[in-house]
């Protein structure tokens, strides 16, 4: 039983691979794709099947009543369904899709691809649907305009570089009785940052080697650490608790947050696995950016000096996203189709 189920899964997987290979031979991936007869498929939709049923019923009505006008109407509808695929195909054929931009996204969120769709002619193109099923996708019409920009979104669960599956471009023009579609590979690769996970306040002053930098400003609101007591230190800052526990007399040191520099170190987060660690680092990076604290990143294989700004944030998050996957456990999901 288990074996047959496994075989079935394997067979399905194998079938899917075959289809994928065949598709990629027919329409190889490219950042700009023009649909043509090689890449477009067409079949009656469910409504089209209903229409065929109506034609059959009308034929029965006309034949049984020997009514030539009913038969004429039947044949008219039959003629209609014969000319429809030509129009449906023409609506999609020649359509050009060009990948404009793929902004990065966070895991667990929707990744978006910005795509330009152009008709390549003066003809109106209607009832076009672009998307990654089973996602909603985007509905568009090219009427009185040559091209349109659409943002198609896909949920991403795994961090890293995620290759998008083939994009489905579909049209049911003109009557919705035929479904004409194509699987387009626009060579879309999403850069997916780790999902931010909140894990306590920013680890200010906790990272090893932080003391090197002399830019710390003493005296402030934020607790920065303990230092041996020196005469002249404020009595209010004495660490009485630690002293009571039998340690040396220390005084608490505070510093101002505004000017602090922060090292987000690989060893800082208390986490079970790599992914959570990356997620926490991601959260901290975002928080630091928001709070205006200069931050640096130190993870195995990458070190980014503390800084601030959108560009810096992008670099940090990209480094986190590109961190090699150690464990073979992966989320799968939409990204693997």
């Amino acid at each position: 039983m288990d074996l047959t189920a496994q075989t079935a899964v394997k067979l399905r997987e194998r079938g899917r691979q075959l289809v994928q290979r065949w598709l990629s031979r027919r329409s190889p991936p490219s950042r700009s794709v023009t649909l043509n007869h090689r890449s477009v498929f067409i079949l009656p939709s469910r409504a089209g099947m209903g229409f065929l049923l109506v034609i059959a019923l009308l034929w029965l009505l006309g034949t049984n009543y020997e009514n030539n006008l009913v038969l004429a109407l039947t044949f008219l509808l039959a003629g209609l369904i014969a000319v429809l695929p030509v129009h449906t195909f023409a609506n999609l054929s020649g359509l050009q899709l060009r990948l404009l931009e793929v902004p990065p996204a966070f895991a667990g969120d929707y990744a978006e691809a910005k795509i330009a769709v152009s008709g390549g002619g003066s003809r109106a193109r209607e009832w076009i649907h672009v998307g990654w099923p089973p996602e909603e996708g985007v509905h568009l019409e090219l009427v009185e305009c040559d091209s349109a920009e659409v943002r198609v979104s896909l949920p991403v669960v795994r961090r890293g570089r995620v290759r998008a599956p083939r994009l489905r471009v579909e049209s049911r023009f003109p009557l919705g009785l035929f479904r004409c579609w194509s699987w387009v590979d626009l060579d879309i690769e999403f850069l997916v940052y780790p999902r931010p996970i909140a894990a306590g306040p920013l680890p200010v002053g906790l990272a090893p080697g932080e003391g090197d930098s002399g830019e710390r400003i003493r005296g402030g609101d934020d607790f920065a650490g303990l230092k041996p007591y020196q005469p002249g230190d404020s009595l209010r800052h004495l660490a009485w608790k630690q002293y009571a526990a039998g340690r040396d007399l220390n005084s608490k040191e505070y510093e101002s947050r505004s000017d602090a520099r922060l090292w987000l170190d690989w060893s800082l987060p208390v986490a079970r696995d790599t992914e959570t660690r990356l997620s926490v680092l991601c959260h901290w990076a975002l928080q630091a950016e928001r709070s205006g604290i200069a931050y640096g990143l130190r993870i195995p294989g990458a070190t980014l000096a503390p800084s601030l700004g959108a560009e810096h944030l992008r670099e940090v998050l990209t480094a986190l996203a590109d961190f090699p996957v150690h464990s073979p456990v992966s989320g799968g999901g939409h990204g693997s189709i």
Partner: protein
Amino acid sequence: MARSKELLPRESLLWIFAAQFVALLPHFARLPLWIVCAWAFAIYWRLEVYRGRRDLPGRLVKLLAITLAVAGLALSYRRWFALEPMVALLAVSFTLKNLELVSRRDAFLSLLLAYFVAATLFVYEQTIPYAFYGVLCALVITAALAAQSGSFSARPRRALGLSAKLLAQAAPLMLLLFIVMPRLGPLWAVPQDASGARTGVSDSMAPGDFTRLSKSDSPVLRISFDGPVPPPEQRYWRGLVYSHFDGRRWSQGFSVDPRQGAEVEWNSRQQRLPEVGPRYRYQVIQEASNAPWLFAMARPLSDTRGVGETADDRLVKKTPVHSRFAYEVRTWPRETLTDAPVLGDAERRRNLQLPATGNARTRAWAAEQRAAGLGAEEISRRLLNFYNRSFVYTLNPPALGADSVDEFLFHSQQGFCEHFAGSYVFAMRAAGVPARVVAGYQGGEWVEQEAYLLVREYDAHAWAEIWVPGRGWQRVDPTAAVSPERIRDGLQSAAEEEFMQDALLPLHRISVFNQLRLQWDMINYRWYRAVISFDSDRQQNLLRRLLGEVSLARLALFVGAAIAAGLAGALLWLWFISRRTRPPLAIRLYQKFCQRMARAGMVRRPGEAPRDFARRVREEKPQLAEVTERITRAFEKAAYCEDPAAEQQLRRLLRRPLTRYRTRKV
């Protein structure tokens, strides 16, 4: 969000309602009023839902609506397996569907139903105006389907235009299918529309019945002849034989009506008739009468399916004529038959039947003749002479009392055909001569251009047949004895003063109108011959004319060639539209700019790069230099970096005349 996108927009709803309205409109008169009201109310409700003033009905309300609808249908219609309840059911399902018209799927379902409702119209009506209306229905419903695709397509002109285009492209295939698709004939017995109480010759005759028929000018029969055309005095189209008289009303009597089990020979190929060849061959197209009897001259034989001959030389149809019906007839006039006719005992008794009492004076006159030992033909001649001497043929005869025959013969002496035929047969029977009343149509208007005989309702006529030993049944028309013009020229000239007196407009007196009416009837006739009565026989004929001979190979070749032509056309069109690709927008915009510059006196040389052109502009027309710079820069960005923003900028720059930039700068 996924659901809200599926919700039907306003245009979709309105289109669906329009399609339903168009499909249902001709049925409104036939449907019970409550269905029409419920339908309108459902639409009102749905529109209120759209406006957000009301919710879609809950499950309980829907259940209640369905229950009420089923109960209403059960109350309105006794018979379930008939056409009318079927149409009503479709209308009700429209109504109920409107209450849950939510998704695109519901919309499709509703529109597919609309096609079906539109088609049922043709089961009732097959005239040219209704055919046009059917085309209109298809146009609107298809447009409604197209309008489901989006807001642009839902614009009335766009949707109707698209629909018309698609239907026009479908028309050739329709024609092809209409010609070659085999007509199988009914696969099973279907309920027919028996609702419309049509006028026409009925299965019984009382004084006054035919007077009523004379007031209608609607066409009944259209007869076209293959070969000789009978002279006017021979044009007696027999439909019914009345053998039973109850003192006032003549009726068919026991075992004459095929509906009561009288013997009918269906499609008898055994030739009871001589092989000398039929004297008259003709095709009759009969209007719907909701009765099974057909009309033909005496001794008819028909090969048309579902038509049979009765023992009293009539044609009947297996099922009532609910819609226009065409049949082929061959007729042998009785004179040409040579075999000695025999009258069976039962038949003799039936045709001598009289009520036990009443009309004593007529009986006495008949007994007198009988006592004188006269033959059947002599008695008939005396009676006809009697009519000829002192009777008046009129459309407005006085009312008659209980002894109607006595009163007519000896008092009023004014009557219409049924009075003459009825009294004649009564008197002959009383004199011991087997006789019967025959009802049908007499005469008809000859339409020269199309060569057919048009018989109208007012040509309805009743006459008599008597049995002459050795010669069989002989036709006697007592009306002819009084008013020969009636037989020769028709009712209009026989009773000119009284003819169509009650008509709202005496249009029949205006010759132009008569001409128009005849023209219209001719168009109708052509329509019936070409379209309505296009059956498997005519199909074979047409195919033989088109292909030379009808064989499967030739037919396949014909259809294959037609389909190949269609495919080639479609492919050509696809190739054409794919060829007609325009250059990219940026280049088109730049070309536009160059045209404007040419008008301003700066012609770009062939092959001159945009940058070189801009430099030249700076030298020769410095006032245009700045805008040229900007356009060139935007163009380069748009064309080579494929930057949509630059494209937009280019478009913006070209929106204003170039000179405007100059004046602003100066």
